[in-house]
């Protein structure tokens, strides 16, 4: 709504009234954030995350050191925390499903490093060998394909971290990563991998915008 009695300082045209100008600026801010995050619209939350889980996960985030300034020519980087769905688990095996938004993975994002964080509760003085199988879903025939596996010695209760290799990173890039944690050699009374509200397994990934997004200024 232009105000006939005054002039825009920048372009010399009729000035907007303050409320319209504020609306316009907020709209610009929204569009700028969505553009820079490569999102077509603001995300709608399907599965809220509990504060306890959020707090645990945030302690694992590795941001730039406080006060460090980003060099303007650095490519945009992300850190992602993805919480596992543990639907298809039982006492002897915990299955973790991680999903990454197609628009993020299709946009040429490259996962630089990924690690799994999970909480284990053991009886005192016991040691477990844990096999971690990395699987991908074959889009054609919906079968699971084992791409690699890790063996882990766990001898204390608490949070444990496993760095995932390039195979898992490739699976993340395809949008869906499946991990199976199978205790070896011992009969469990109950699952040693906890996934209650405050102990939900999650994955952290450091992501860089891939070359497709690079705009080179000549």
């Amino acid at each position, binding site marked *: 709504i232009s105000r006939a009695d005054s002039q825009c300082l*920048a372009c010399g045209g009729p000035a907007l009234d303050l409320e319209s100008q504020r609306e316009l600026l907020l709209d610009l*801010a*929204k569009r*700028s954030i969505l553009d820079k*995050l490569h999102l077509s619209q603001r995300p709608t*939350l*399907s599965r809220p995350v509990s504060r306890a889980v959020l707090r645990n996960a945030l302690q694992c985030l590795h941001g730039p050191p406080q006060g460090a300034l980003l060099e303007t020519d650095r490519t*945009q980087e992300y850190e992602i925390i*993805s919480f596992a769905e543990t639907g298809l688990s039982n006492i002897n095996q915990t299955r973790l499903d991680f999903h990454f*938004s197609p628009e993020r993975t299709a946009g040429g994002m490259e996962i630089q490093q990924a690690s799994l964080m999970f909480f284990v509760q053991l009886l005192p003085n016991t040691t477990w060998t844990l096999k971690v199988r990395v699987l991908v879903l074959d889009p054609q025939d919906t079968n699971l394909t084992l791409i690699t596996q890790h063996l882990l010695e766990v001898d204390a209760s608490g949070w444990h971290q496993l760095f995932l290799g390039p195979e898992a990173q490739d699976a993340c890039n395809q949008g869906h990563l499946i991990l199976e944690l199978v205790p070896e050699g011992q009969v469990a009374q109950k699952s040693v991998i906890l996934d209650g509200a405050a102990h939900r397994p999650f994955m952290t990934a450091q992501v860089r915008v891939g070359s497709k997004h690079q705009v080179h200024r000549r």
Partner: protein
Amino acid sequence: GIECQGGSRMCCRQEFFVDFREIGWHDWIIQPEGYTMNFCTGQCPLPVAGMPGIAASFHTAVLSLLKANSAAGPAGGGSCCVPTARRPLSLLYYDRDSNIVKADIPDMVVEACGCS
């Protein structure tokens, strides 16, 4: 750069805070609660357009002068008020899979304005 104050019509930086709660984005953006976007506004009349201090850069000042001398130019001297320094913004937010994403986005906060 110059901060916009009172009735000044000169090229300056206008402070502007975007409150995520006000725009209804506080559910998916975890931190921060808002950010100072700021913007540039004001005129770049001829004498000012030529001053390196307020120009976007020394080269811009020289170009503005060349342009101004060779063309009549609109009332504003043919030079615009633009950001000369910007700062990144760190965002922590949920994506549509309820993953938590931490992103450092360059050039989101206008720190200073000048004539170009």
